[in-house]
C-alpha cells in the first residue's frame, strides 16, 4: 500500500494505492490520525480509487478516523470506492455512516 498526501487550503486529500490489510492498515491509521488529531485539518478526503482490497483492519482504521473527526469537529470523506471496498463497508453496515462520493469533484464540493 502507498499513501500520498495533497494539501489544498483546509483540506488534505490522501491518495491510497494497493491493499489495505493487517500489514498495511497501521500506516493508513497513522496518517489519518495525524491529519485529524495532531494537525487538526478540518477536512480529510480519502481517494480509494486504487485500493484493490481492504480487510476488517482497514475498515477499523476508517472507523477510528471517523470517530476522531467527529470528536474534533472535522470531516472525513471517502470517494472512488472499488467493488472490494464497497463490499466490506456494506458487510459492516457502514455505507450510510460514512460520507461517500463517486469522484473527487463531488468530494471537494462543500
Amino acid at each position: 500500500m502507498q499513501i500520498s498526501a495533497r494539501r489544498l487550503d483546509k483540506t488534505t486529500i490522501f491518495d491510497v494505492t494497493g491493499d489495505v490489510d493487517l500489514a498495511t492498515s497501521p500506516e493508513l491509521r497513522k496518517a489519518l490520525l495525524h491529519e485529524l488529531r495532531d494537525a487538526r485539518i478540518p477536512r480529510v478526503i480519502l481517494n480509494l480509487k486504487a485500493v484493490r482490497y481492504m480487510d476488517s483492519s482497514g475498515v477499523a482504521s476508517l472507523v477510528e478516523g471517523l470517530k476522531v473527526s467527529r470528536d474534533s469537529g472535522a470531516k472525513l470523506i471517502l470517494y472512488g470506492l472499488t467493488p472490494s471496498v464497497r463490499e466490506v463497508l456494506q458487510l459492516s453496515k457502514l455505507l450510510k455512516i460514512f460520507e461517500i462520493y463517486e469522484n473527487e469533484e463531488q468530494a471537494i464540493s462543500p
Partner: protein
Amino acid sequence: MGRSGLLLKLELQSNPEMLCVVRHALAQLAETLGFSRAECRAVVLAVDEALTNIIRHGYGGEEGHPIHASFRWIAVRRDGKHGRALEIVLEDSGKKIDCAKLCGRPLEDVRPGGLGMHFINECMDAVEFRRKLGRNQLRLIKLLDGPKPEMGA
C-alpha cells in the same frame, strides 16, 4: 486433481506480509474453479480474515509460527442432490481460540474492530471450528451457488 480432491496446500508463517501472497493465489484458484468475481472476493476476504485472526489472536502477533492451509474440491449434498464446493482448512498451533471473543459485535455499535468473524460468516456457506490435538482447525466451505451444505460431507 487427485482422488482426495486436493487442489493446493500451503505452509506459511504467521507473517502479515504473507497475506497478500495467499490472497493472490486463492483468487486465481477460485477463478479457475469457476466462482464468480464476487464469490472470489468473498472467499479471499474470508480466508484473509481467518489468517489475520490466527496471526493476531492465535499467535499474539508473533511472526514465524506455522500455519497450514489446504484447499480441496469436495462433494456436498444439498436438497438430496450432489453439488461441489471449495473446502478450505486452516490449521495452527497457536493458543486456543475463544470463539465467544471472536464472534463479533452488533454492527449498530460503530467502533473499530470486531468485524473479522462477521465477514467470515457472511462470505462462506459453512464455518466450523474445532480444537484437535492441541491445534486450532478452521474449516470453511464455499459452494459454487445454492443453499448452505450439510456439514460433515
